[in-house]
C-alpha cells in the first residue's frame, strides 16, 4: 500500500467512526465535537484529491463557523442527557430503517454513474486548485454563482429583519 492509500483508509475509517460517534454519544456537545472530526476527515479527503481550496473552505466555513454556532446554541440551552426524553423502541427502529433506505439509494445512485469514477481519478488533476476553480466559477458558471450570491444577500437581509426589535 502506498502512503496515499494508507491515508485514504485512515481518513475513511476516521470519518465513519466519528459519524457513528455523532449519533451514538449521549451528550449533544460531544456530538458536535464528533461532527467536527468528521469535517476534518472529509477535508483530508479533499487534500488527497488535490483540492486544497475546498479542503480549507470546508474547515473555515463548516468546522470553523457553523459548528461554533451549533456549540453556542447547545451550550446556552444546556441540553443534558438526563433531560432528553426516552424514545420508543419502534421509533428508533423506524429511524434505523429509513436511514438504511437512504444509504441504499445513495449507493445505487452513485455506483453506476460516471461521476463517481471521475472523482476517484481527481488525485492527479489540478481542477480543485483555487486558480482553476475561480476560472470555472467566473467563466462557465457565472450566472448560477451570481444567483446564489443574491440568495445569500437576501438571506442576510432576512436575518437582519427577523433580528430587529419591533
Amino acid at each position, binding site marked *: 500500500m*502506498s502512503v496515499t492509500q494508507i491515508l485514504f483508509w485512515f481518513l475513511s475509517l476516521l470519518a465513519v467512526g466519528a459519524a457513528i460517534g455523532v449519533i451514538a454519544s449521549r451528550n449533544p*456537545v460531544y456530538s458536535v465535537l464528533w461532527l467536527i472530526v468528521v469535517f476534518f476527515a472529509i477535508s483530508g479527503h479533499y487534500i488527497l484529491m488535490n483540492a486544497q481550496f475546498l479542503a*480549507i473552505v470546508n474547515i473555515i466555513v463548516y468546522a470553523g463557523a457553523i459548528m461554533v454556532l451549533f456549540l*453556542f446554541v447547545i451550550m446556552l440551552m444546556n441540553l443534558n442527557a438526563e433531560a432528553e426524553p426516552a424514545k420508543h423502541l419502534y421509533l428508533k427502529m423506524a429511524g434505523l430503517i429509513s436511514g438504511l433506505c437512504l444509504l441504499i439509494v445513495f449507493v445505487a445512485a452513485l455506483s453506476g454513474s460516471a461521476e463517481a469514477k471521475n472523482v476517484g481519478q481527481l488525485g492527479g488533476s489540478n481542477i480543485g486548485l483555487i486558480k482553476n476553480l475561480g476560472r470555472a466559477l467566473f467563466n462557465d458558471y457565472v450566472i448560477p454563482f451570481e444567483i446564489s450570491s443574491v440568495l445569500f444577500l437576501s438571506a442576510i437581509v432576512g436575518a437582519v429583519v427577523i433580528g430587529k426589535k419591533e
Partner: protein
Amino acid sequence: MDLLLINWAVFTEKLILIIAVVSGSLVIAMYSTYAERKVAAILQDRKGPNRAGPFGLFQPLADGLKLFFKEEIIPNFSSKFLFILGPCLAMLTAMMIGAVIPWGNMLHFFGRNISLQIADVNIGILYVFGVVSMGVYGIMIGGWASNNKFSLFGALRAASQIISYELAMGLALIALLMVTGTLSLKEMVGQQMDSYWNFFKQPLGFLIFLICAFAECNRTPFDLAEAENELVGGYHTEYSSMKLGFYLFAEYINMFLSSAVMVSLFFGGYDIPFLNDTALITKIGVNWVTIIQSVILFMKIAGFLFLFMWVRWTIPRFRYDQLMNLGWKILIPLSLFNMMITGALILLKQNHWHF
C-alpha cells in the same frame, strides 16, 4: 515497500525546521511575558521584574516553575476529557500558524537549497484563517467543560468576539488579495521585495487587519473575555497550574505569530528595507543574506510585539456593546468600502487610468 520511498533528506530538514519554529515560538512567547512586564513598568514609571537573574531575565523561568508546582485542580462535575482538551487545543492551534510563514528565503547547505518555510501551500493565508477559526474551540470547550456559569459566559463572550472580528479581518484581506493576486505568503513576500510594501498599497486594510488581530488575540482593548471587574476570570476561571499556563501562553504565541503574519502580509516579510537583496546575494552569498533577512524579520516582529504591549498599557478596555458596534457597524462597512475602492483602482489601472 513503497513506505520507504519518502525523501529522507526533505523529511529531516522539515523535521528540524518544525522543531526550530515550535521551540523558537515557545521561547519568544516566554520572553514576551518578560517584555510585557518590563514595558508595563516603563510606561508606569516602575522598575519591573529585576530580582531573578541579571535584569530579571530569569523571571519567565521562575513563573513557569511556579505554574508547574501549583496544585492541579479538576472540578468534580466537569467532563474531564474536555477539560484537558481545551488548553491543549488552544496551544495546538496557536502553534500551527507557524507552518506557512516564510521565516527567510533559503539556506544552501550540503548542495541542497533548504527553504525556510515549513509548507509553501498555495492556499497559505487561507490556512491561517482555518487555524484561527479553530482557535475558538479551545476557548469554548474549556469554558463549557468547567461546568461553571462564569466560565461559560467568558467563553461565549470570547467566542462571539473572535467570530465577529474574523469577518472584518477576512474582508480586509480580500482587498489585499486583489492587489497581490496570490494566496501564498512566500509569493506575497517576493512581490513586496520587488516593489513597495503592501502597507503603502493597503493602509486602510492594514489598519482594519491590525485591529482585528488585536481582537483575535483577546488582547486589550478587546480582552473582554477576562474582564476581571465584570466576570470572575473569564473562560479559565476554573483552571489552575499549567493548564492555566497553557491558555495564558497560547495568547503570547498567538501574538507572536499574528505579528509574523502581519509583517509578511503588509511589511515585506523578510525583505531588507532600502536594499537590493539580489545584489547582496552575489556579494556575500545566499546563507549570510538569509540570516540577515531572518534577523530583519524578527526585528519587525519585535516591533509589532512592542505595539501590542504599548496599546495594552495605554488604551482602556471597551464595553461589550461598543466592541460589537465597532466590529459589525464600523469595521465591516469600512472593509467593504476598502474592497470597492481597491477594485475600482485596479480596474482603472488595467484601463491605463482612463475612465
